[in-house]
């Protein structure tokens, strides 16, 4: 009975993590696009993005802990940190580990942004575009034998949302109005040294 509870909690927390992570990715893109409306200031998008990212980690922790503690899965704590080290669903769980670690790196560097500086933070943050699809694939792969309608609907909705957001990002004009003149000027004043 408690085993089934653990199992449902793992799946539930996993699903919630995916939804939250999707929201985080979409809000991150909207943040870069500097969207705002009457009553929706830009700091709200950024603030939600950050807070939901932390919430994602909480549900992810629940997801991982219940999965490891569950005797049915025969997972050790090592599988949470070393990818592809489980005998149970090696590939799909390994992907989950990878997604988790990428996310951890992103969140830790974000919390330490003041220490590492903007440039380093930005480089690590690009890993988001790796972490999210890996998490989705992990979800699909580990859930194939017990795929239920609601999980399918949630996954599809998440994928559609992120694809739409990425589409928006790719088609929007740059939000930094100085991007073009700055690049033009820099090209004009770049010089190799002459002896």
């Amino acid at each position, binding site marked *: 009975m408690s085993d089934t509870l653990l199992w449902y909690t793992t799946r539930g927390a996993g699903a919630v993590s995916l939804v939250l992570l999707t929201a985080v990715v979409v809000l991150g893109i909207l943040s870069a696009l500097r969207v705002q409306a009457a009553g929706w200031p830009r700091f709200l998008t950024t603030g939600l993005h950050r807070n939901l990212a932390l919430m994602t980690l909480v549900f992810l922790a629940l997801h991982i802990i219940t999965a490891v503690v569950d005797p049915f899965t025969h997972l050790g704590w090592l599988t949470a940190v070393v990818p592809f080290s489980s005998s149970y669903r090696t590939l799909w769980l390994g992907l989950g580990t990878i997604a988790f670690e990428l996310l951890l790196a992103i969140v830790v560097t974000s919390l330490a942004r003041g220490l590492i500086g903007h440039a380093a933070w930005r480089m690590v943050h690009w890993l988001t575009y790796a972490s999210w699809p890996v998490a989705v694939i992990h979800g699909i792969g580990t859930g194939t034998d017990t795929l239920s309608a609601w999980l399918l609907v949630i996954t599809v909705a998440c994928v559609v949302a992120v694809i739409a957001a990425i589409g928006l990002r790719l088609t929007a004009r740059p939000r930094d*109005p*100085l991007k073009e*003149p*700055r690049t*033009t*000027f*820099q090209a*004009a*004043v*770049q*010089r*190799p*040294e*002459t*002896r």
Partner: protein
Amino acid sequence: MTQLLAGRNLALGAEGLAEHVRRLGPLPVPGPSFIEVLERSGLKGRGGAAYQAGMKWRSVEAQSNGAAVVIVNGAEGEPRSLKDRLLMTTRPHLILDGAFLAAKAVRAKQVVLYIGEDHRAAHDSMARALAERTNEERRLVRTVAAPARYVAGASSAAVHLVDAGIATPTTTPPSAHQRGVDGAPTLVQNVETLAQVALIARTGSPTGTHLVTVAGGVSRPGVLEIQSQTTIADAVELAGGPSEPSEAVLLGGYFGTWIRAASAWGLALDHDALRARGLSLGCGVIGVLPGSRCVVCEVAGIMRYLASESSAQCGPCFFGLRALADACTRIAEGGTDHLDLQRLQRWSAEVSGRGACHHPDGAVMFLQSALNTFPEEFAGHRAHLRRSA
């Protein structure tokens, strides 16, 4: 009295090393108190900002541990200025003397000649002069071409180009003398200042002269060496006199100040006297505006130029100067609109001090000077029937 441009006729080109040494004696070795000599001389920089040279050297030397860098700034980004190029093409060894004196005094391991990429004659002259120097001196030196943009002549842009290959101004602090090329304290000094140093090392004091470029509506525009009691009228006469009656003088280049011609003629080109009236020699350009040209239109043209020379790193500078230039152009081409005059005041206040470098500040001061000196012209400007070029 020694002068910077003493020696062979300027039209004969560069003075070679043998002649230079014959005329002035060999380059003295700077003693440990040379910086003190420099401080006591009161020598001010000739690049435009007029910082005390001794103070700069003192600051660089204090933090130098043998890795300091000297940048010889011959970029001359100010479009109407010719003095730095003249020095480089006729008295290159004065400049090199000053550079090597600086290198010894601040314990530098590198001397960089920063010369405008389009200024071939200056580049060639300095290269030929360098070839005449000792091996030890030559080993210290490398030449870097300055891009032909207005801001490329600024200290932080020069450091940035030498350091990272791109001549955009950077945020200060830290300034060059604290942390410059490769993180080392860097002395950026104008070529005319270094030429003065070469003479101070031999005579103990500066020449008491300045190089100025007289430009615009005069018969013989060009470079003059003048003393502090020389008046603007004297300088204009030495440049052949006005080609037509003039109403306005721009003193100090595009970051300088406007003066009504009537008030300008009697002004002595003395740093302190000018300071007392809120004026400055700046980079030494004395621009005489021909009477046939309209001040308002001229100001609009220069504002457009300064706006286009923004490095586009800071929003207030790029957009603010453009807005100011557009408003000036509207006044120049369409006649005065009092809303535009209000905008000029509001934007001037908002743009000043909100860039990383002093480019927007200089442009705003130039504009404010025009508005304060020619208020009636700006208040009542009408579009010209025939636009003056």
